[in-house]
């Protein structure tokens, strides 16, 4: 038993190629699963278009909307999703609770993960964690009311961060499309600087290289590799997250610390010295001892 998985490539802006999706859908395709908002680079996939394609081919569409909920407009009818994964703590709710949206018409059938008391029509056996669920509901309600306010504010903060950094240093690349993105997630690569050393110097700023989910491995993030980012730039990426509770002072402090650390690392870097002298590092023939 098992299933064949077809992985779709993404373009250098992080977006799925819709024509490729249409080509890869087979008569026996059971499910199309696309993340709505990527957690590492913040890119928003064209879910509406993907939903239309899935409807055309009558294939169920699942999306991971954990990072999308409360941040961009989620409309299950417009998106034509049959299944949607949601997470409580991503919308400032309690940790330890999530939800899976299952469409009613046309009904999508799932097999239960655990068998037991048969709650929720046999799909989710077990006792509902009431405080967590109420918390998630309240968080969703608030997120609905505050979405526009939060988005405007976070957009301003993101520009402040990016412009603040770009004013002081060059060689800063934003990974992922600049137009189709969630404003609170900014993934930057700093040329000639190594990601982990940058992180170690940014002790006062909570940022990550890659995402929390991949913290165990030392490999450069699979997301960036899929974007086609060069190995050396992939190793140097760090992700800034901006949220409802981020303040202007925190942004300014993050800019100050990041610029200082990047400049310090570049000064120590012999590669950067060579670049400044005009040598093209890609042309170097490294001697083997």
């Amino acid at each position, binding site marked *: 038993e098992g299933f064949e998985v077809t992985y779709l490539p993404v373009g250098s802006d992080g977006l799925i190629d819709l024509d490729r999706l249409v080509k890869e859908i087979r008569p026996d395709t059971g499910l199309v699963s696309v993340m709505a908002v990527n957690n590492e680079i913040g890119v928003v996939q064209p879910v509406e278009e993907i939903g239309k394609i899935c409807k055309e081919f009558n294939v169920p569409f699942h999306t991971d909307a954990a990072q999308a909920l409360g941040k961009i407009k989620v409309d299950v009818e417009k998106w034509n999703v049959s299944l949607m994964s949601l997470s409580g703590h991503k919308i400032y709710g309690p940790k330890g609770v999530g939800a899976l949206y299952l469409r009613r018409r046309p009904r999508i059938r799932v097999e239960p993960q655990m068998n037991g008391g048969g709650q929720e029509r046999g799909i989710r056996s077990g006792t509902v964690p009431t405080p967590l669920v109420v918390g998630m509901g309240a968080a969703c309600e608030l997120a609905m009311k505050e979405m526009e306010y939060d988005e405007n504010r976070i957009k301003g903060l993101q520009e402040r961060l990016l412009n603040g950094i770009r004013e002081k240093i060059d060689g800063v690349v934003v990974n992922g499309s600049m137009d189709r993105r969630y404003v609170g997630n900014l993934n930057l690569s700093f040329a000639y600087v190594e990601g982990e050393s940058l992180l170690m110097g940014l002790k006062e700023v909570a940022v990550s290289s890659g995402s929390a989910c991949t913290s165990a491995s030392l490999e450069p993030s699979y997301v960036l590799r899929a974007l086609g980012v060069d190995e050396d730039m992939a190793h140097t990426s760090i992700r800034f997250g901006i949220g409802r*509770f981020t*303040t202007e002072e*925190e942004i300014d402090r993050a800019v100050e610390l990041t610029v200082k650390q990047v400049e310090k690392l570049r000064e120590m870097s012999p590669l950067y010295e060579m670049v400044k002298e005009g040598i093209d590092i890609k042309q170097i023939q490294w001697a083997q001892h």
Partner: protein
Amino acid sequence: MAASGAGVPMRREVLQLYRSLLRVTRQFCDYNIREYSKRRTMDAFRDNKNLRDPSQLSAAFSHGKAQLEVAKRQSLLYSLYPPKVKSIMDF
């Protein structure tokens, strides 16, 4: 429950509510929550300052009063288990 006895607030009451909210939010131990609640209060009152319709005014006022209750309760709860380490921004 219609109108819940609030009625249309007078200017004095609105200012009193504003000051009470800011006073309570100053007591939050967490830097981010403190800054957020202060900023959100100021922005909300500023956005509503041109409201003239009585039902909108009393709705906004009741909402503000409800938020004040939430803030009072939460600042008490947070102070029961204050974090041992302060935010870096508080130094």
